[in-house]
Structure formats: structure tokens, C-alpha cells
């Protein structure tokens, strides 16, 4: 029996801190009176912040731990930072929202912490067991959070998310089984070694990988595994949706990137076509369906689906060793861009949301620009960023994405991406049209954390688009090991 060493702990330090913090907070929360759950929120945020601090110190560090089940490297650190930031935004958005909608519960933040820890674990997973467990660890809190407002729609979304999520994890388990069957191991490096050695049944491995892809595709909302997304996003409390849209997607993608790039490069000839098709279908379906939406939450949900397609595009040439690093870096970069714009736009949605789900129709945004010019401007920035229009981070991100698709030799995919971006302009602009070109009298909630989040993300979306190199550098070094 071996005891864990310092390296083991160091490798998983952010996760451990956050988990311990969450467990402790679970106890502390018992002593915080109902009226003052803000303290829990603050403590949760503090925990994330502390973890974030540690995570940042780990930039550049590389190690493996726990029988090489988890890995610490630039990639995971990048993902950790991104995920922890998402967690912070998630808390910031939730703080006022939960108060306003009468669902203040300490567990909200604790579950969120657990979910973040699951996501981080996902990013660091170097073994399919960890991948599976992390997937569940991030999902189960999300199932609960979706249903937490205990309105019917919220519960409905929880049940849908849960059933379909469990269904999808069935595929993950089965896929893992097949991979195990093909290689005799669940460790990514070992799988790669086995696959490279060529002694295993390639097809079994491929099927296993494909079934894993189904599971990840479900998490990141790639078509045709996306159908839960709009319903869940719409039904779940908006602050949860915001967190889910960013966090789950990031986690799903980083795991996808890591698992496939580490374990299955040899399968690229088979998988590339599948990825291509997934990406294309996702972009097309997401954008097309979004056009007809009148509810902003649903619209953003479809937009989230569409963006899954875009990010997948970066991943299509993952087997091409020359292109893969930049391509995956582009994917990471776009994840950041997406996350930032995503939180901003959900922040605006939260600002306008009224009780009983009012204020969520796109028409309710009419006249926003006249009354709240700053908010409307911020929303415009997010919309432009989601379209991929300068001067926003989304544009830079898309530029990278399309570049990697082209460099990988997929001009058709890039073209689909561009054309669907054009389609997307139409529904994003509809929001802008309503805000600027129609008369209306919207009311918003003024909440400091909300304002801070939207303001920060809006400014970041614009400013970083002018100086994206540090971000891209981070992403690139994260991928180049």
C-alpha cells in the first residue's frame, strides 16, 4: 500500500482545495441563518478565488499523480483557471438572482463548488475512470441546480437533464468498456501506447471512442445529442443556465480534447469524418433553429449549441500533428471568448428577467437602449461577439477557428461555419433591433454584482480582442507540451 506523495497532492491541488472547502462550507452553512446566505456565497467565492490563486501559481507546472490518473499541465491549468473564473461569474450572477426569485439556499453555492471541482477534475483526468467520475461529479450538482428553483419548469428541466444525462453516461461507460476491452487499460497514455503498438483490435477501440464521443457530445451539446439543451436552459434558473452553459461546455471540451488528443490520435482517419459531421450538423442545426426563437433563453441555448459546433470545428483536425496544437489552442481560445460573452449576455438576461419567467421574450428588450444605454451597449457587444464580429473577442476567436479548419484541410467546414455565422447574425441582431430600434419600456434590476459581471465581460470582450496575443499564447503553450 502506497501513500500519496507530495507530487500527488500538488498535481491535484486546486481540486483538493476546492473540494475540502466545499465540504467545510457544507458544515459552515448549517450555522448561517437563512437571511444571511450571502455569507455562504461570499465564502464560496472566496474558496474559488483561493483555488484560482493556487491555480495561477501552477502555470507552467507539469506533473502526474495518483498512479498517473490525473495530470497537471498547461492545458489543465488553463482549463482550471477558466473553470474557476466561470465559477466566480456563476456566483456573481446567482447572488442577486437567487434573492430576487426567492430561492436563497446555501446549498446552491456548495453544489456549484462541487460542480466546478468536477469540471476541474475533468480537465485533469488522465484516466477514463476519472473522466467518468468527474463527469458525474460535475453533472449531478447541475441536475440538482437545474431543478432548484422548484418551479415546475425548473423541475421539468431537471428531470430531462437528469434522464438524458444518465442515458448519455451509459454510452460513456459502455465506450469505456470497449476501450478497456481493446487495450486492457483505462489510462490514456497506456491506451495510446497500446493503440500505437497496433496489437489491439482497432475497431473495438474506435467504437469505444465513438461512444465516448457521444457522451462528450451530449455534455457540450453537439447535435444530434443536443436536444436537451434548449429545454434545460430555458427551464433552469437563469443563473444556473449561465454557469452550466459555460462550465459544462468548457469541461466537456477540455476532456474531449485531452482524451482524444492523448489517447486516440491513431483513430483520426475514422473519427475525423465523424467529428466533421458532428461539427457541421451542430452549427447548421443550432443556428437554424435559433432563428425562430422568441424566448431569449431558448435563443441563447441554440446559440450555445451552435457554438459547440464552432469549437468542434477546431477539433476536427486533431489527428494532424502539424495542425493539432494550434487547432486545439484555437478551440481553447474560443472557449474563453465564448465563456466571456456567454456570461455577459446571460447577465443581461438576468437583469431583465421578471418573476414568473416574464421579461424573457426578445420583444421585452424593446427600448432598452434608450433607457439603459450602457446595458444595451454591453448586450450589443456580446451579440456581436457571438456573431463573430469585430471588434470583439468572438471575432478573433472565430478567425482562429476558421484558420485551424482551413489549415487542417477542411475548407468546406470553414465555409459552413462562416455561412452559419451569417445566419446567426440574423437572430442576434434581432435582439439589437429590439433594443435600439423599437419602442418599449423595459425595467431592469440594478444589482452590483450583476453590473460588475456584465461590465467586466463587456469590456473584456472588446479590449482583449485588441490584445489577444497573451491569451492565445496561454492557450498555445497550454497545448504544446
Amino acid at each position, binding site marked *: 500500500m502506497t501513500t500519496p506523495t507530495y507530487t500527488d497532492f500538488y498535481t491535484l491541488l486546486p481540486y483538493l482545495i476546492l473540494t475540502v472547502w466545499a465540504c467545510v462550507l457544507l458544515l459552515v452553512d448549517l450555522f448561517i441563518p437563512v437571511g444571511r446566505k450571502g455569507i455562504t456565497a461570499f465564502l464560496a467565492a472566496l474558496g474559488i478565488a483561493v483555488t484560482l490563486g493556487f491555480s495561477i501559481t501552477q502555470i507552467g507546472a507539469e506533473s502526474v499523480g495518483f498512479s498517473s490518473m490525473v495530470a497537471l499541465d498547461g492545458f489543465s491549468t488553463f482549463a482550471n483557471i477558466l473553470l474557476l473564473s466561470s465559477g466566480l461569474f456563476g456566483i456573481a450572477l446567482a447572488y442577486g438572482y437567487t434573492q430576487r426569485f426567492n430561492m436563497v439556499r446555501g446549498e446552491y453555492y456548495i453544489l456549484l463548488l462541487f460542480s466546478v471541482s468536477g469540471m476541474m477534475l475533468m480537465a485533469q483526468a488522465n484516466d477514463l475512470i476519472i473522466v467518468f467520475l468527474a463527469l458525474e461529479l460535475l453533472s449531478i450538482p447541475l441536475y440538482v441546480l437545474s431543478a432548484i428553483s422548484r418551479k415546475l419548469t425548473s423541475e421539468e428541466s431537471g428531470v*430531462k437533464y437528469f434522464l438524458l444525462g444518465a442515458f448519455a453516461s451509459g454510452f460513456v461507460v459502455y465506450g469505456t468498456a470497449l476501450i478497456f476491452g481493446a487495450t486492457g487499460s483505462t489510462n490514456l497514455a497506456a491506451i495510446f501506447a497500446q493503440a500505437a503498438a497496433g496489437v489491439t483490435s482497432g475497431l473495438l477501440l474506435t467504437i469505444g471512442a*465513438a461512444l465516448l464521443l457521444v457522451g462528450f457530445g451530449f455534455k457540450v451539446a453537439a447535435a444530434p*445529442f443536443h436536444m436537451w439543451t434548449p429545454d434545460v436552459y430555458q427551464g433552469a434558473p437563469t443563473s444556473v443556465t449561465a454557469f452550466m452553459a459555460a462550465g459544462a461546455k468548457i469541461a466537456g471540451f477540455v476532456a474531449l480534447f485531452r482524451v482524444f488528443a492523448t489517447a486516440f490520435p491513431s483513430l483520426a482517419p475514422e473519427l475525423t469524418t465523424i467529428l466533421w459531421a458532428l461539427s457541421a450538423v451542430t452549427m447548421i442545426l443550432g443556428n437554424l433553429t435559433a432563428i425562430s426563437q422568441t424566448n431569449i433563453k431558448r435563443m441563447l441555448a441554440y446559440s450555445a449549441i451552435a457554438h459547440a459546433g464552432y469549437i468542434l470545428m477546431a477539433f476536427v483536425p486533431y489527428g494532424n500533428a502539424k495542425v493539432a496544437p494550434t487547432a486545439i489552442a484555437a478551440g481553447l481560445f474560443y472557449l474563453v471568448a465564448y465563456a466571456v460573452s456567454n456570461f455577459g449576455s446571460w447577465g443581461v438576461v438576468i437583469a431583465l428577467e421578471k418573476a414568473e419567467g416574464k421579461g424573457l421574450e426578445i420583444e421585452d428588450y424593446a427600448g432598452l437602449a434608450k433607457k439603459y444605454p450602457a446595458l444595451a451597449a454591453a448586450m450589443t457587444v456580446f451579440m456581436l461577439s457571438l456573431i463573430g464580429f469585430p471588434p470583439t473577442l468572438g471575432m478573433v476567436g472565430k478567425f482562429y477557428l476558421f484558420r485551424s479548419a482551413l489549415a487542417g484541410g477542411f475548407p468546406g467546414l470553414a465555409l459552413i461555419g462562416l455561412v452559419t455565422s451569417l445566419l446567426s447574425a440574423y437572430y442576434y441582431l434581432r435582439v439589437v433591433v429590439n433594443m435600439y430600434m423599437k419602442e418599449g419600456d423595459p425595467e431592469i434590476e440594478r444589482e452590483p454584482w450583476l453590473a460588475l459581471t456584465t461590465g467586466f465581460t463587456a469590456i473584456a470582450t472588446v479590449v482583449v480582442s485588441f490584445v489577444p496575443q497573451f491569451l492565445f499564447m496561454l492557450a498555445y503553450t497550454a497545448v504544446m507540451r
Partner: protein
Amino acid sequence: MHLSETINTGFYFLAPGLVLVPLLGLLINAIFGKSFSEKMVGTVASLASGTAFVISVLLAYSVSINHGHTVSVPFAEWIHIGNLKLDWTFRVDSLSATMMLVVSGVGTLIHIYAIGYMHEDVRFKHEEGRFTRFFIYLNLFIAAMMILVSGDSYLMLFVGWEGVGLCSFLLIGFWYEMDTLARPSWANSNAAKKAFITNRVGDFGFLMAGFLMFWHLGSFQFDEVFKAAPAIAHESPWIIVAITLFMLVGVAGKSAQIPLYIWLPDAMAGPTPVSALIHAATMVTAGVYLVTRSAPLYTLVPQAQYIVAMVGATTALFAATIAVGQYDIKKVLAYSTISQLGFMVAAVGMGAYVAGMFHLITHAFFKALLFLSAGSVILGLERGHHALAHHGHDDHSKGKKKEAKKVESGHGGHDDHDEVFDPGDMRNMGGLRKTMPVTFWLYMAGTLALAGIFPFAGFWSKDEILLDAKLHFTSIYWQLSIAAFFTAFYMGRQIWMVFFGEARTDAAKHAEESPRVMTVPLMVLAVLSVAGGALNLPFEGFHNLGHWLSYTIGEVEGLPLNLGVAGISTVLALLAIFISWLIYGRNPLKTGQVDPLKKPLGFVFTGMENKWFVDEGYGVLIIKPFKWLSQFLADVVDWKFWHDFVHDTVIAGTYNWISEVALSRYADQKGIDAFFNSWGDFTNWLSGNVRKIQNGFVRSYALSVLLGVVLILGYLILK
């Protein structure tokens, strides 16, 4: 430079002044005109024009002392790109000097005349600025015309060419809010527009000629073009033919030749001085000038020359026939002008450049005289009419007119469904010899000159053309002779109708003579009309003009007087006048009487009267189809097809083809969703179905997941 030196070497440096001085006059009037009195405005404008005349004289002098050498006076660079070198350079040679003299000379006289005329014009209601504007336009015209005649390249010529077109547009449409009878109407502005557009058609030809010239002859500059032309003509003559014929299109536009003459009669909508200056004496002769200027090109291609001559001759005859059937005093003169321009174009087409230029000059004198006198007649009649109306009623002008209509309702004519007194209608005149004696005599001088009666100016110039035609192209000779016969006839008809017999209206009865400021310039012109022939008498040693122009267009053999030709033409003219006396003079027209020619000539006269229905033909053949086409393109092709169908239905429709539009639930949404209102049930049905996939059922969602799995596995099997 000392004056004496200048006198010895020439005043070439003054050439830009030809353009700049009128422009200066224009600017002064434009800027300070508001505070000037009418007289002041007129004086400034006339002085500007007069100065240009003085400069012209000095330049002519310079040419003569320099043995006719051509001098280019560079002024400024214009367009320099690669091989294209276009400059603002003035060309002073005998030809351009001649034109300058004519333009500025006649122009100055008309300026002076206009001071009186415009003041008197009944349409002029002492509107602030209108008077000034008129003289601004006139100065602008002089400047443009000077550019035309003094340019050293085809392109500079073209600048003037279009410039005078603009002035023509502005001046024809001077009374833009009314018709010639001062009723509110689109007529005058239509006439102006027609003139401009018709001229643009001609300009198109000019441009094409220019392009060919540049790419095949390498330049626009006259000398360079002429130098390069012979070699090209040798290699590929079609190029020169094409150039000259395209140029002919331009000539036809500007000099009102078939088929583009149609604008000139309508141009009479402008004030009479304009008709005299632009549409008789100067601008319309630009085409003749152009052909003369391009003589080195035309000489190379006899085929083209022949076509030019034929066009001219045909126009001469054709227009003369129409003139016979006109009632409006100015319309008669207008068709006469077209006809005479035909003479000139025929002449230059035949290579008889001197004859053409000679006729150009004399025609400028006597046609200006005729027009101005006609203006005097019209004003006289107006005054008579005015006095009458004023006498009877103390109403303001509108009322006066109405009353006047009643007074005049008895007068003859077919076009009097609107009962406005038309002071230009010859049927409203008669017996003016007594009331307007000065005008009468002036008019007589002009008429005789035009009719080609010995020894008036027109006689000499026309005979020279006829003689050339006789020597070269018999068919043209006969056409021109017949045209000359008609000329004498319609002029006779005019004289009898206007000045002889009894006054057919009260206005004519009370007509008054015009003031000095108008008649004095006329007298000058009359003298020139009488004696202008002296410029180029067909006697050995008297070919002054020929000699003078030979500096520029090369040596031309001066033809001696051919008594046969002269005799025949004189006899024809006298015969025509005699016939006209028989018809119109012996039995003067009564009030309300139909033209005595109408009965014997029947439909032929109807044709003449209605200008052979050419305008109507153009309307049916060109204008209507163009309007229809543009309407069709705009409404059907562009809007319904490109805009609505291609964009809204095909593009935007496809856009929403697959996704649902929310029409069913949000049918009343305005604005953006109205974007999609136009597509049919089919798209709704389809798009609705796609959205239905997202049906809210967990089972179906799971189905979708499984479908994905099945497809992926299927792919792996097939791979």
C-alpha cells in the same frame, strides 16, 4: 513686354481672356447682381462680351501679321495620365479667329439687344434675379463658346461643346415654369431637357470618335491627330471613317441635322435673343466648325464626306419644307436655320470649307438679324396687346390675360383651344409695316439676305455652296437649289403675312416700335447682312475669306462667279417670292382664315404643318420604349425580381425555410417579422415541422441521441 513689341509679335497671350473675361463678367453679376440695377447688369455682361470681341480682333490681327501661323497658347495642364496629355491650351489661327470674331461680335450685339428685350419681355415680371440670371447665362455661353472655338484639342472643343449645350439647356428653359405663351406648363422645361438630351446623343458620337482617335491616332491634339491620320488612313481607313462618322453624329446633334434636329424648333421656347445667339448664329454652327476643323481627317475619307454632304443636303431640303407650313414667326426661322445649317454641313461635307464658313458667317449676320427683328415684332405685338388690355381693365396681370383671351378669341388658327393670345403667331399679325417701320426694314434686309437675292450677303455665300455642289455632286446641287427655292418662298410668305395686308388682331393694330437699345444692334447686323458678302467675293483677288482660312485648312481654289448657277438661284428665289406674293401678298390673310396653301396641298401641307410627324415618330420609336423599358426594369426586374423575389423570397425565404418563423404565434409582430410576411404556406409548413422535432419529449430527445449513435456506428461499418 512692351506694347510696340506686342504689336509686332501678336497678342496671343490674351487668348485665355476670351474665356476668362466672360467668366469674370458672370462672377461679378452672380455675386453683386443683387445690388445692381438692370442696366448695370446688362452693361457688365455686354462689356465682358465686348472685351472678348476686342480680344478676338486683336488675335485676328495677330494671326494676320504672323502670316496666318497657328499659335498654341498653353494655359494650364488638365488631364495627364500616361500617354494621355490634355491641356487647357488655346489655339489661335485664322479659323478659330474667324469663329471668335463671329461669336463675340454677334454675341455682343445680342447682349446689348437683350438689355432692352428682357426688360420688355412680357413674361418678365421684374423678378429679382431673373434678369441677372439671364445675363449670367449669356456670359457663360460666350465663355463656353470661346472654349469651343479656341481649344487646341478635340477634348477642349468637347468641353465647350457640352458647355454650350448646358447654356442652351438653361436658356431654353429660362422661363421654366411656363410655356411660350406664359401659361404654367412643363413645355419650356421639356424643350430644354429635350435639347440637352438630344445633344447628349450627339455627344456620345463625339466621345466615340474621340476614343477611336486617341487609341488609333494617339492624341486629341489637332495637329498631332492630323499628322498621324494619313498613315492610319492608309493602313486601315475604316478607323478614319468611323471617327468621322461618329463625329457626324455629334455634328448632327449640335448643328441640328437629321436625325437629331428635333430639339431646335422646340428651343424657340427660350427668349428671342437666345434664339438669335445660340440657336441661329453661334452654337448651332459648332458642328460646321468641327467639320471644318477636322478637314484633314475628312479629306482622307471621301465616303464619309459624301455621307456628311448628303445629311446636310437632305436636312436643308427637309427642314425647308417644314418651314413652309409653320405659323409661328420664330418656328419658321428655326426651321430655316436647320435648313441653312444643312447648307453649311453639305458644303463642308463636299470639302467646300470656305463656302461653308462663309455661309456660316453671313448666316450669323442675317439670321441673328431676323431673329432679333422677330423678337422686336413679338414685343411690338405684346406691347400692343398689353396697351389694349391695360386700357380696358385695371386688373392685375392674370386677370388681364384672361380678359385678353376673350378679346382675341376671334383670331384664326387651329391650336387655340386655349384662348391665350400668342404674339408669335403670324396669323395674329398683319400690316405691321406701318406700325413698326424700322423693324420692317430691318426684317426685309434679313429676308433678302436669306433668300439669296443679289447683292445681299446670303446671295454670295449660298451661291458659292451651290457652285461647289454643281461641280461635285449634282444630286446635292438640286436638293440645295430646291431648298433655296423653298427658303425664298417661306420668307416671302412670312413677310407678306407679318408686315403686309391689314392687321388681323387688335394687338397688331396697336403694335409699337421697339426702343433704341434694341434697334441699334439690329441696324449693325442689317448692314452686315447687306454687305457681308464682301468678305469673299467670287472674283479673282477678292477671295479674302478663302485666303484667310487657307492658313489653317490649306489652300483652297477660289471659284469664279458662275453666272449659270447664280442666275438659276436668283431666278428661283425671285420666282418663289413671286409665288408667295400670289398666295399671300395679293390677297392678304383675313382674320381667322385658313392658310390658303392648305387646300391645294392637302395632306402634304398637313405634313409640313406637323413637322412630318417626326417628333411623334421618335416618341413611338424611342421615348415610349425607353420609358417602358426603364419602368419595366425598375418595377419588374429590379424590384419584383431582384429585390422582392431574389432577395426576399429566395434568400430571406430560404433563410427561414427550415426554421420556424413564429408566424402562427406572432402573426401580429411588426417590423422585423414583416420581413417574412411574404412567403407562402409551404414554407410555413416545412419550417414548422423542423421546429417540431424539438417537441419537449424526453423520449424523442433520447431517440435523437440514439440516432446519432446508430449513424456513427453505421459510418464505421461502411468505412
